């Protein structure tokens, strides 16, 4: 029940920024950090108390002229990697970050191999096949004509 009341109403609060650049960074940070107690919401959208606290914390740190890395480090130190929607690149996440590129490369290599082997196989089988004899060619022509005639 508690959770549902968090979920349903959008979080809107009113911080005054002296610098529009800071306001932009505020939204970006709140967008990329996950609310530690909610199911799957960033701290910008969540109405949970902790998300509100964290927004206030970001606001204070921005006003204290901390840079983005310092703010993110602070959050990770307290709540772990869980708060990062953009996981850090480290051995546990190599597959996550490099996997897609690797699969793409692999897929393209497979495509090249398939096409090459197919061309070879196709040429092999079709070069050895005897061509049509005269009577067969005539029969084929006749067949094609009747088919076309029917379609028109």
């Amino acid at each position: 029940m508690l959770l549902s009341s968090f979920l349903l109403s959008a979080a809107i609060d009113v911080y005054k920024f002296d610098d529009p650049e800071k306001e932009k960074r505020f939204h970006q940070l709140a967008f990329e950090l996950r609310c530690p107690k909610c199911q799957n919401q960033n701290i910008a959208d969540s109405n949970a108390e902790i998300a509100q606290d964290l927004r206030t914390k970001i606001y204070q740190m921005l006003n204290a002229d901390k840079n983005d890395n310092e703010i993110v480090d602070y959050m990770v130190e307290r709540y772990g990697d869980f708060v990062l929607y953009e996981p850090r690149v480290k051995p546990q996440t190599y597959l996550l970050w490099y996997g897609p590129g690797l699969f793409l490369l692999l897929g393209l290599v497979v495509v090249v191999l398939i096409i090459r082997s197919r061309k070879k196989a196709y040429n092999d089988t079709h070069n050895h096949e005897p061509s049509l004899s005269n009577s067969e060619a005539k029969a084929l022509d006749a067949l094609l004509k009747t088919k076309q005639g029917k379609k028109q």
Partner: protein
Amino acid sequence: MIPEIGEFALIIAFFLSVVLALVPMYGASTANDMWMSYAKPLAMGQFLFVIISFVCLGYAFSQDDFSVVYVAQHSNSQMPIQFKLSAIWGGHEGSLLLWALILTGWTFAVSRFSKALPLDMLARVLSVMGIVATGFISFLLITSSPFARYLPRFPADGADLNPLLQDFGLIVHPPMLYMGYVGFSVAFAFAIAALLSGRMDAAWARWARPWTNIAWAFLGMGITLGSWWAYYELGWGGWWFWDPVENASLMPWLVGTALVHSLAATEKRGVFKSWTLLLAIFAFSLSLLGTFLVRSGVLTSVHAFASDPERGFFILMLLAVTMGGSLTLYALKAPNVKSESSFSWLSREVLLLVNNVFLTVMAITVLLGTLYPLLIDALGQGKISVGPPYFNAVFVPIMCTMALAMGVSIAVRWRETTLQSVLNKLWKPAVLSILIGLGFPFIYGNGFDARVFLGISVGLWIISTVGTEFIGKFRNTQSITNRLRQLPLSYYGMMVAHVGVAVTAIGITLVTSYSEERDMSMHKGDTVEIAGYQFTFQGTHVVKGANYMADQATIEVVEDGQPVATLRPEKRRYNVKNAMMTEADIDASLFRDLYVALGEPLEQGAWAVRMHYKPYVRWLWLGGILMALGGLLTVADKRYRQSSPNQEATHA
């Protein structure tokens, strides 16, 4: 009494599906015409009894029968009738019943509209769908019956439906989505039937293609509707969050897109047959996986309304049997498939293969990102999150590259094309889209923006290559109208769908780059300016809905002294659960949305108000609609209404 009839009808449907799964299949393998001919009436009976069951549940909802547990949990006597009825699929059990209804409906449709199919093929297809229905209906009966009762003491009133779901979006979004998910079972059934019969020729692709396109179009519409619903209903103005449940629907759509293209190549050129079969198996398996992810609650996400390990286990078994069985069959039979033709390096076949690689890698990426946190957690490596920044970082480069290939593929012919002719066709669109892409951010925004350049160029590249190719069709004709009529509908479908991709790409680019948002504390009479629009807060008053009370604000929007809109966002409190909900108000138009949401009351009569200016946001759904429309146009092509080549031969 009525709910018991519903349960009983479901049990009858279960037995019919068991018979459908066994008898026609056995008939097909022993060439027994009589046994095969049971398939059609069984498909009809199965559908009929699931309809009866569904109507009974609907009746229980409409009559506020709170002795039924499912009704008591998801409805309330105060709810308007349309939400009582759509509450049928507002929870786990009813969603599954809707799933079963759509599955048996598709089965029935296949039995009716496949006159051209040979009897043994039809028997096998319907039997495979009967197997799937057996799995799902037994899942319903064993773990998730919607007809269970609270007896003898039942609640006086229901617990109410989640207010987020009391909305038009919920009436239409799930049925659309399920039409797509379940529709892939038809392609799956055709693939399995082709593998079983050993006839993996181009004919199966022709039979399966219209069904696959329809399913794909529905799934696309379902996703589009879901995105639109999240946008206006969740109150934060986002339209895609890479939530696991969104991902669960995106994966089958991506693989389905690959399948739609690969089927085209198989049908027209007799190539990639075994790959197409594999895609058909995976598209449906991913639909099942999506169901597992959503319904088991393994992923805690916004959508996990129901979570129960026993149910999750059942779907997992269903998934394991489906995938294990079909992949084993594939491994045994697919190596026999021979290609019917060859093609050169620069041919549409190769570009379609490349497209398939991209789409498959995208689907794998979504899968990886969705399951990675689970994997890391299961390995005891701690808890991590994978969200929008990750997906955006990985998807944008892949999508842009694929969009480039899309433009090229339009200019390339089947079999073989010379590089010269491709370059001749493409250089003008390339120059045009790069120039406009470069200029656009200077004219529309305040200077160069790499993201905007990329998005606009890519979108225009797709549109201009499609346009060039289309105009090229008229080069040697006298009568334009005749030529317009001669072009097959599937060609129009392809063009519309590709333009849809471009429209979505442009929409995404512009709305992410040029949106403006302000969160303000506003007193009565305060004015805020965003993107040239003046928003004036005129205060709030209380309004009463059918089952909620709301504070409704009035906000006047003025541009250059001219009134543009009066927006009335609400903060609702639903009576039954005391749930608070933000109901945003939107002034929508093709080129921009003005979006206002009402937050909390602050001190001295002020309110927190969030105002958005969202340019071109409609384009991303417009593109989704165009893609779905393209898929449907292709189905309307007259070659799918002709009788099969086999029949032509017998008549000749």
